[in-house]
């Protein structure tokens, strides 16, 4: 599936952000995302704007907002007909992720509540140079803002910078992936990690990894 950065020669649907009608709730956003990702061409700017135009309403995502004392939780919301994964991540105060890549997929991250801080990193150079990873700076995202990253842009660490408030983020990954790499900031060493979920579709799934086939049976 191709993902392009700006509108092509044809005026295709789902490319011009000006045509976006803000979804009234999360279900409408998901419905629209299904349509957008059904086509072979997906426009990064369009998807970013679409996700940003949905005004976060806790009633929509409250059932996915599960916080853990020790680490952030991943809660699968929708499996996008195999074209994308949509999940809600819940960050307790000061919780953060490792530096990670995105397995050649595209990652859109929208803040649903609180604040999210993203620190970008350059890919570590070849295996000989065992040195500290280079930071490309930090960005703070507020409620309803959307961040985008892919492996060509670089790597990142995401964290909740607040010591008082929790944070909830909505992530879309396309194509879906079950494995990526996490990096040691001090050495650049990478290791493979599995994407696991605290819950899927609102149900608790201990140690559950991504289901290999998310396409429903055609009965």
């Amino acid at each position, binding site marked *: 599936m191709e993902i392009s950065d700006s509108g092509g020669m044809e005026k295709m649907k789902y490319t011009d952000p000006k045509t976006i009608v803000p979804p009234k709730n999360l279900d409408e956003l998901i419905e629209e995302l299904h349509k957008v990702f059904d086509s072979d061409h997906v426009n990064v700017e369009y998807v970013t704007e679409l996700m940003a135009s949905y005004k976060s309403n806790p009633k929509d995502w409250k059932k996915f907002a599960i916080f853990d004392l020790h*680490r952030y939780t991943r809660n699968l919301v929708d499996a996008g007909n195999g074209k994308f994964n949509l999940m809600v991540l819940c960050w307790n*105060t000061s919780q953060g992720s*490792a530096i990670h890549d995105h397995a050649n997929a595209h990652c859109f991250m929208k803040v649903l509540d609180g604040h999210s801080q993203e620190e970008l990193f350059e890919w570590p150079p070849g295996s000989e140079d065992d040195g500290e990873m280079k930071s490309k700076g930090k960005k703070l995202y507020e409620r309803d803002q959307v961040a985008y990253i892919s492996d060509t842009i670089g790597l990142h660490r995401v964290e909740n910078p607040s*010591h*008082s408030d929790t944070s909830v983020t909505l992530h879309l990954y396309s194509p879906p992936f079950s494995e990526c790499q996490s990096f040691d900031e001090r050495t650049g060493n990478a290791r493979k990690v599995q994407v696991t979920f605290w819950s899927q579709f609102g149900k608790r799934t201990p140690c559950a990894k991504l289901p290999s086939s998310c396409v429903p049976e055609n009965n």
Partner: protein
Amino acid sequence: MAGYISDASSDSELNGRNTGDASHNSLSTIPDHLISRAKEIRSLILHHNEFLLIPKSISLFGNLLTLDLSNNHLTDLPKELITLKNLRKLVVKSNGLTCSSIPKDFGLLSSLEELNFSGNMFEVFPPQFTELSRLKCLYLGGNCISEMPNSIKNLQRLEVLYLGGNRLTEVPAEIGQLYYLISLVLCDNHIQSIPPTLIHLRNLQSLSLHNNQISTLPPEIVRLNLSELSLRNNPLVNKFVQDMTYEPPTLLELSGRVVKIEKVKYSKEDLPSNLRKYLSSAQRCVNSKCKGVYFTSRVEHVKFVDFCGKYRLPLLQYLCSPQCRTTPAVYHSSSDTETDEDEAMANARLRRVLLG
């Protein structure tokens, strides 16, 4: 911080009838419709309002279990608060409270299990808090606290201690006495070292130390059963430190070493008490293959250990001689079975850690 595993809705033991939620309004006092239900309300949720002070009418809510006044403009807590004898959870995040805002008899709220004062202006850790013997969760993140009191050890039931985002430079050894602690958050401070007594926290599952001034860690840290450890942004030693200064041992030390290693027998009649005391202060060389001991002359050695599969930790250890870095300085032909078992366990643990 949200509770253990919690969702955005209120506590499970409470239903709509017992909850008074008037959050996200422009209230500066408790509304009449909640005052009239005061006796039946178990949970009073008033965050995101315009309260400048807590009215005396708070004492009408005699059966209150939970009170949330976060995100208001409070600078003081009234003594009437202490009449709430059943209060279990008090949340007053993001206000303008300081240590002097806390009533001196605050410790009488003995039923308190959860206390959250994150995002205020505390510069001093209020001593009254350490009188709350039933406290399970204490959240003081995002304040300006520069010191943790030794009396922290009085909070014997504490399971969660959150002190991230303050001005701590050290951690008292007494923290090791909080046996039931499962989560300890100390990130975003100016902490330079971690006490070895942390090893006693056998129930600790997560330890947050990122964004501090820590350069080495006590070796005991690898023996904790942690599932989460954050260490980023500390000036951790990156390379092996080859030659640290080594003071040659004194004659006293050398004699002491021989007595201990050769297991020379001595009794009250043989030695004065000050020498017997000296001999009993011998420390084992941390190199498990070395049977050596040291008294005061030791080599600081930084050893790297892979931990949690994510980090290479620099651990500060003491060796009895510079040779111990690679080969043991002292061999023993015979050995205690007890010592061998300890040794085997320590080696097994290290191997597990090194293999990730």
